[in-house]
């Protein structure tokens, strides 16, 4: 079937393929996630990544070819970061009332996530540029890449770390919060969502949005705050060393 082979060679090399594969696989993973009652282990981001990466390996399509199409989706991360201004603005009254505590939680939580990553990375003997790529991992991927570039990390690696961090947070957050006895009251949901947005960025926030509206709003808020705090403070802190 030479005709079919030629057709596949053409399709797999065109940007259409990467874009279509990403959207279709995500929609299927999302449908399965809803059907399984939003079980943490059924996370659609995780399974979409596994499915696409496996598919690319099996069909011998390389990552740059795939990304030529997927970049149209990737591009939307920029406007999505700007769009975080909307949940911030919506909660401005509440935010003003709790501003001190919210800012304290965002600063301490972000510092704990980043500080422990750098300290643990050094103590297990990871190379300097890998440790510097670990530092911004709790910030959303595109911003993490920008920060890593500024502090001497590897941008692509920091994006990978950010994705892994988001997945770990989205998969295990529920069990950790249950173990910490953070109840599912209004205040509990706010804390759970805010923590996911702070330490597990967009992937954690997406999980929070699906579980509870209050948690989702606070996750969006935390995500926006963390982006601003990390982008401002991390390069300053690391310049001192």
């Amino acid at each position: 079937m030479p005709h079919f082979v030629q057709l596949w060679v053409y399709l797999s090399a065109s940007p259409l393929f990467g874009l279509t594969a990403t959207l279709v696989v995500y929609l299927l993973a999302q449908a399965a996630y809803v059907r399984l009652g939003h079980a943490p282990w059924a996370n659609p981001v995780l399974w979409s990544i596994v499915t696409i990466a496996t598919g690319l390996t099996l069909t011998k399509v390389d990552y740059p070819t795939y990304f030529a199409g997927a970049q149209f989706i990737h591009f939307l991360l920029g406007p999505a970061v700007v769009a975080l201004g909307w949940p911030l603005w919506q909660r401005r009254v509440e935010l003003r009332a709790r501003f001190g505590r919210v800012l304290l939680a965002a600063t301490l939580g972000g510092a704990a996530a980043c500080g422990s990553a750098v300290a643990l990375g050094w103590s297990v003997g990871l190379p300097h540029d890998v440790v510097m790529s670990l530092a911004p991992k709790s910030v959303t991927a595109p911003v993490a890449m920008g920060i890593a570039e500024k502090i001497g990390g590897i941008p692509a690696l920091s994006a990978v770390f950010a994705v892994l961090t988001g997945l770990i947070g989205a998969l295990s957050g529920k069990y950790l919060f249950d173990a910490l006895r953070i109840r599912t009251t209004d205040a509990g949901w706010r804390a759970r969502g805010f923590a996911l947005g702070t330490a597990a960025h967009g992937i954690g926030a997406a999980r929070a949005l699906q579980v509870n509206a209050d948690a989702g709003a606070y996750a969006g808020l935390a995500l926006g705050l963390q982006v601003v705090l990390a982008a401002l403070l991390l390069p300053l802190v690391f310049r001192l060393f």
Partner: protein
Amino acid sequence: MKGLRGLAWLLVFQSIGEVLSRGFSLPLPGPVLGLILLVPALRFALVREPVAECANFLLSHLSLLFIPVGVGVMTHLALLSQYGGRMLVVIALSTWIGLAVTALVLYWPDRKAP
């Protein structure tokens, strides 16, 4: 139409952010500056209404946007397998520490509330 106008606003703010970030070599990335500039502009209905529509759509599909970068993990398999075990432990532990500290700081004063 409204959603499209919203996307245009988001891109305009991101572009202004990029210009400021690069032009003055500021420590903040372009989209973050765009976010900071967008918030005060949302008091105007002309900006707010279209942006709300587009932002709700974009943010409700936020997880989709991470898939292209996530698939990039496959290009770093060599590095990941070299440090794989240690690296995963570091990432998991520091994520849990971050989650726990943030949640407890925010929740502690409310822990007795119904």
